[in-house]
C-alpha cells in the first residue's frame, strides 16, 4: 500500500518536472515584428512577453492540447488550440483590430452625431447650442452641407429632393408625421425634443438597405438607453412652459416631458407680418420607458401633440384674406427591443404607430383627414467573425388615409387610400483589413396599392489612404411610393426612383475634421400631372425625371482657437427636374445653387457663458414669373441670416438663455405668388412670400433639480 502511494507521488513529481518549451515569433500581417505582445496558455500561469525582435519563449508543465492566447493592444486577440509538445519556432500573425479608433469606416453620405459614432460630425449638445436652431433638431441639421435652407418650410430638403423624400426613424421605427402642424408658407418644427435622444445619424444619400421608402435621405434618432440620473427640469420661456422628469429604478427608468407653447403673448409684444385670429398654441409631451433585461433593452416611446392655430393669409387671387384654421392632433408611439443572444447574434425588433388628425377650415370650406401609419420591424444580425457581420430583416408598413372635403352647405368629397408595403433586406459588412471595408446589400419590396415589386441594390466601400484620411464610395437604388397628395386620388402609379453615386473624402485629426463629397443622383418615374394643382380629375403619369449633382464641403475645428468650436459647410448643387406640372426640365423653386453656413460657439470662462453665432448665406432661388416667356426663369435675391445666442450659467443648475435670429434684420424673400390671370395692363401681379417677422427673440430660464448638483439643461438649449 505504502509503496503504491510513494510510487504514484513519484510519478506525479516526475511528470511535473517534464517541462516543455514553447517558442515563436509575433508579427503583424505584413510581417513586422511586434514586441511586448502577451503570449500564454489559457488557464495557466505559463507565458511570456515577446522581446524587441518579436520572439518569445517559455516553458510549461502542461501537456496535451491547450489554447495559446496572444494579445496586444490594438490587435485582435489570437487564440488557437495547440499541441503543447511541438509548438516551437512558430510565427503568429496578429491582425489589426478593426475596432481601433483609426480603422476605416464607411462614411459616404452619412453624418453621425452621438456617442456611439466614432467620427461624429455633430455632438448631441450641438443640436441645442447652435444659434438659430432653438432646440429644433432639423434646424441644427440644416447647418450641414447637402441641405437647403427653405425658410418658409422649416423641413429637411436634401440634395435636390423634396422634404418628403426624407424618412425619419426613432429607434429604427418609422415616424410617419415627423413635423409639427403649420400654416402654408410658415416654417414648422420637428416634433422631437433633443433632450431625449443621444444618437442622431443623418444620411444624405447612399444609405443602408435597412431603410427604404426614401428617395433622398434618412434621419435616424435613438433615444437615450440609460438616463444618467433622476432629475426634474423646469423651463420658463417667452413662448411657453416646460417640465420634465426622470425616474430610475433598479432595472427600469422613465423619462417624460411636457410643454405648453403659446405664441400669443410674444406676438403681442413683437409685431408680426401675419394676421392671426389665434396664434399658434400647442400642448405636447413625450415619454420614454426603458427596461433592461439581462441581454437586451426594451424601450417604449410615446409622443403626443395637440396644436391649434387660426390665421388670415393673403392670396393674390383673392381680394379678401383667406382664413386658415387648423386643429391638429398627433400621436406617435413605438416599442422596440434590442438584444443579443446565442453566439454573437443580435436582434432588433419593434412596432410603431402614428396617428395624425387634422381639421382644417379654409374660409368656409372644411377639410378633415386622418392618417394611421403602422410599421413592424424585425432585424437579425450575426457577427460571423471580428471582420464579417451580416444582417437580414423585414419591414411591414401600413398607411391608411381618409380625407373629407366639405363645401359650405355643399357636397362632401371623400378621398383616401390604404397601402401596405412588405420589404425584406440582407446586408453584409466586411472588413478586408483595417484599411479596406465594404458594405453590400439589397432590399426587396412589394407595394400593395401599386401592385409592384422592386429590388434595390446598395453598396459602399471605404479605403483608408493615410493615417487620417480615407475615401468612400457609395452606390444605391431607392424607391418611394408617390406622396399622399397624389395617391389619394388614384392608385394608378409606379414608385418614384432615384439612383445615387457618392464619392467621399474624409480627413480627421485632433479635433479637426474635413470632408468633401461629390454626388450624382438620377431621378426617374417622377409623378406628373397637367392641372395647376393635383386634384381628383388630374391625369397623372410617372413620366417625370430629373437629376442632381453637386459638391458638399464640411470643416469642423475645435482645436485652433481656445474654447472655440466652429464649423463651416458649403454646398454647391446643380439640379433640374421635370415633374409636377412643369412644362420642361428646370431647377425647382426650393433649390439655391450655393449654400454656405458658419456656426461658432465660444465658451467664456470668466462670464460662465457660452456665446454662439450662426450665419447662413444662400444664393437666390428660382421662381416662375408668368410675365416672362421662359418657365421658372426668375431668381430671388440671396438669402442671409445671422443668429446669436447666449447661455449664462447663473449657478450650476440654473441657466439663463437668450437668442435672437436674423440680427441684421435682412428682409428675406423666399419666392413669389403670382396671380392666375393678368390684370388690365396684361401683367400678372405678384405677392412676395417672406418672413413673418424680421427677427425672433427668445428668452428662457432653465432649472434642473437633481441629487447631483452638477448637471444642467445646457444640453437642452
Amino acid at each position, binding site marked *: 500500500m505504502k509503496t503504491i502511494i510513494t510510487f*504514484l507521488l513519484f510519478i506525479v513529481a516526475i511528470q511535473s518536472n517534464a517541462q516543455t518549451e514553447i517558442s515563436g515569433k509575433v508579427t503583424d500581417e505584413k510581417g513586422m515584428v511586434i514586441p511586448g505582445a502577451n503570449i500564454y496558455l489559457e488557464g495557466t*500561469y505559463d507565458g511570456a*512577453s515577446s522581446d524587441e525582435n518579436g520572439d518569445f519563449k517559455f516553458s510549461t508543465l502542461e501537456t496535451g492540447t491547450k489554447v495559446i492566447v496572444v494579445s496586444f493592444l*490594438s490587435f485582435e486577440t489570437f487564440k488557437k488550440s495547440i499541441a503543447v509538445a511541438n509548438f516551437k519556432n512558430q510565427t503568429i500573425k496578429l491582425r489589426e483590430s478593426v*475596432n481601433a*479608433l483609426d480603422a476605416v469606416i464607411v462614411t459616404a453620405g452619412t453624418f453621425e452625431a452621438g456617442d456611439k459614432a466614432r467620427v*461624429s460630425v455633430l455632438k448631441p449638445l450641438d443640436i441645442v447650442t447652435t444659434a438659430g436652431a432653438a432646440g429644433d433638431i432639423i434646424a441644427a441639421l440644416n447647418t450641414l452641407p447637402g441641405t437647403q435652407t427653405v425658410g418658409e418650410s422649416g423641413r429637411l430638403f436634401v440634395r435636390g429632393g423634396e422634404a418628403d423624400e426624407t424618412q425619419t426613424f426613432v429607434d429604427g421605427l418609422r415616424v410617419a408625421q415627423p413635423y409639427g402642424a403649420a400654416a402654408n408658407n410658415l416654417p414648422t418644427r420637428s416634433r422631437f425634443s433633443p433632450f431625449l435622444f443621444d444618437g442622431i445619424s443623418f444620411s444624405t444619400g447612399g444609405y443602408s438597405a435597412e431603410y427604404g421608402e426614401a428617395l433622398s435621405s434618412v434621419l435616424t434618432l435613438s433615444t437615450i438607453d440609460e438616463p444618467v440620473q433622476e432629475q426634474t427640469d423646469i423651463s420658463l420661456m417667452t413662448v411657453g412652459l416646460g417640465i420634465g422628469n426622470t425616474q430610475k429604478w433598479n432595472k427600469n427608468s422613465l423619462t417624460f416631458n411636457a410643454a405648453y407653447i403659446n405664441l400669443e403673448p410674444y406676438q403681442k409684444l413683437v409685431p408680426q407680418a401675419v394676421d392671426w385670429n389665434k396664434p399658434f398654441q400647442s400642448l405636447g409631451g413625450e415619454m420614454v420607458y426603458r427596461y433592461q433585461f439581462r441581454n437586451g433593452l426594451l424601450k417604449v416611446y410615446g409622443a403626443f401633440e395637440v396644436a391649434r392655430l387660426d390665421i388670415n393669409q393673403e392670396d393674390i387671387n383673392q381680394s379678401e384674406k383667406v382664413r386658415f384654421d387648423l386643429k391638429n392632433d398627433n400621436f406617435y408611439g413605438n416599442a422596440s427591443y434590442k438584444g443579443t443572444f446565442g453566439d454573437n447574434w443580435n436582434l432588433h425588433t419593434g412596432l410603431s404607430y402614428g396617428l395624425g388628425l387634422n381639421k382644417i377650415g379654409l374660409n368656409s370650406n372644411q377639410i378633415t383627414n386622418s392618417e394611421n401609419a403602422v410599421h413592424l420591424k424585425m432585424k437579425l444580425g450575426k457577427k460571423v467573425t471580428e471582420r464579417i457581420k451580416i444582417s437580414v430583416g423585414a419591414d411591414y408598413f401600413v398607411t391608411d388615409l381618409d380625407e373629407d372635403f366639405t363645401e359650405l352647405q355643399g357636397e362632401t368629397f371623400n378621398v383616401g387610400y390604404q397601402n401596405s408595403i412588405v420589404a425584406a433586406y440582407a446586408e453584409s459588412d466586411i472588413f478586408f483589413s483595417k484599411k479596406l471595408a465594404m458594405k453590400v446589400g439589397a432590399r426587396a419590396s412589394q407595394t400593395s396599392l401599386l401592385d409592384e415589386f422592386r429590388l434595390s441594390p446598395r453598396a459602399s466601400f471605404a479605403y483608408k489612404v493615410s493615417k487620417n484620411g480615407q475615401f468612400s464610395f457609395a452606390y444605391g437604388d431607392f424607391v418611394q411610393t408617390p406622396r399622399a397628395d397624389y395617391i389619394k386620388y388614384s392608385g394608378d402609379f409606379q414608385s418614384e426612383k432615384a439612383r445615387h453615386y457618392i464619392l467621399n473624402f474624409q480627413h480627421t485629426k485632433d479635433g479637426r475634421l474635413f470632408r468633401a463629397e461629390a454626388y450624382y443622383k438620377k431621378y426617374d418615374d417622377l409623378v406628373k400631372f397637367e392641372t395647376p394643382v393635383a386634384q381628383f380629375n388630374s391625369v397623372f403619369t410617372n413620366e417625370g425625371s430629373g437629376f442632381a449633382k453637386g459638391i458638399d464641403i464640411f470643416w469642423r475645428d475645435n482645436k485652433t482657437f481656445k474654447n472655440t468650436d466652429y464649423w463651416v459647410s458649403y454646398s454647391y448643387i446643380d439640379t433640374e427636374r421635370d415633374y409636377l406640372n412643369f412644362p420642361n426640365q428646370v431647377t425647382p423653386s426650393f433649390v439655391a445653387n450655393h449654400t454656405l453656413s458658419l456656426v461658432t460657439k465660444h465658451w467664456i470662462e470668466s462670464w460662465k457663458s457660452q456665446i454662439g453665432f450662426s450665419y447662413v448665406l444662400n444664393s437666390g432661388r428660382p421662381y416662375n414669373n408668368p410675365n416672362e416667356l421662359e418657365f421658372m426663369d426668375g431668381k430671388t435675391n440671396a438669402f442671409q441670416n445671422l443668429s446669436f445666442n447666449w447661455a449664462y*450659467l447663473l449657478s*450650476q443648475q440654473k441657466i439663463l438663455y437668450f437668442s435672437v435670429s436674423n440680427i441684421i434684420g435682412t428682409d428675406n424673400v423666399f419666392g413669389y405668388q403670382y396671380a392666375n390671370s393678368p390684370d388690365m395692363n396684361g401683367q400678372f401681379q405678384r405677392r412676395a412670400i417672406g418672413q413673418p417677422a424680421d427677427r425672433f427673440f427668445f428668452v428662457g430660464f432653465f432649472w434642473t433639480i437633481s441629487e447631483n448638483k452638477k448637471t444642467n439643461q445646457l444640453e437642452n438649449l
Partner: protein
Amino acid sequence: MTKIIITIVLLVTSQLFSQGQFEQGMGKAFALWGEGKNTEASAVFERIASAEKESWLPNYYVALVNTTTAFSTKDKDQMNALLTKAQSALDVELSKYPNNAELLVMQAMIHTAWISFDPMTNGMKLSGKVMELYGKAAHIEPNNPRVVLSKAEFEMGSARFFGTDIKPMCLEIDKSIELFATFKPQTVFHPKWGVDRALEVAKTCKK
C-alpha cells in the same frame, strides 16, 4: 481507499502549488509595475487572470495599470486602446461582483479618463455616471479611503470649474487621509493605493 488518498494528496499539492504561483506571479507583476514596465506588468496580471478565475484582483490590476497608463498618454489612438483593454478586463469582474466598491471606483476612473480624453463629448455624458458610481461605492463602503478620496477629487474638479467653494471636498480629503492610516487591506495584494495622491491633493487645498 488508495484512490481517496491519492485524490486528496493531489488536491492539496496542486492547491499549494497554485497558491505559491499566485503569490509569485502577483509579486512579479507588482515588481514590473514598480519598474515602470507597464505593458509587461499588465501582461503578467492578464496571465494570472486567465488561471485564477476565482479572484477579481488580477483583472482589477489589468484595468488599473492600463487606466493609469492612459492618463499619462498624449496619443489618442493609444489612449483609446488602453482604455478599451482596461474596460474589457473590468467588465469580466464587474459582471461577477457588481457591488464591489473597489471595482466601482475603478469603473469611475475609466470614465474619468474618457472625460479627459474628450471633455466636449464625454463630459456631459459621463460625469453623471461617475457621480452615480461614487455614490454607490460610498453606500457600500463609506469608510473605504479610495472611495472617499476619488469622490472628493472628482467633485473638486467641477467645483473649481464653477468657482464654488472647495472646502467641503478638502475636509473629505483630510478624512480619507485618516482612513488611509487605519486601512488594512484583506491581503497584501488587495488595493491599498491612494495615500500619496490624497496628500498631494490636500496640498492644493492649503494654497
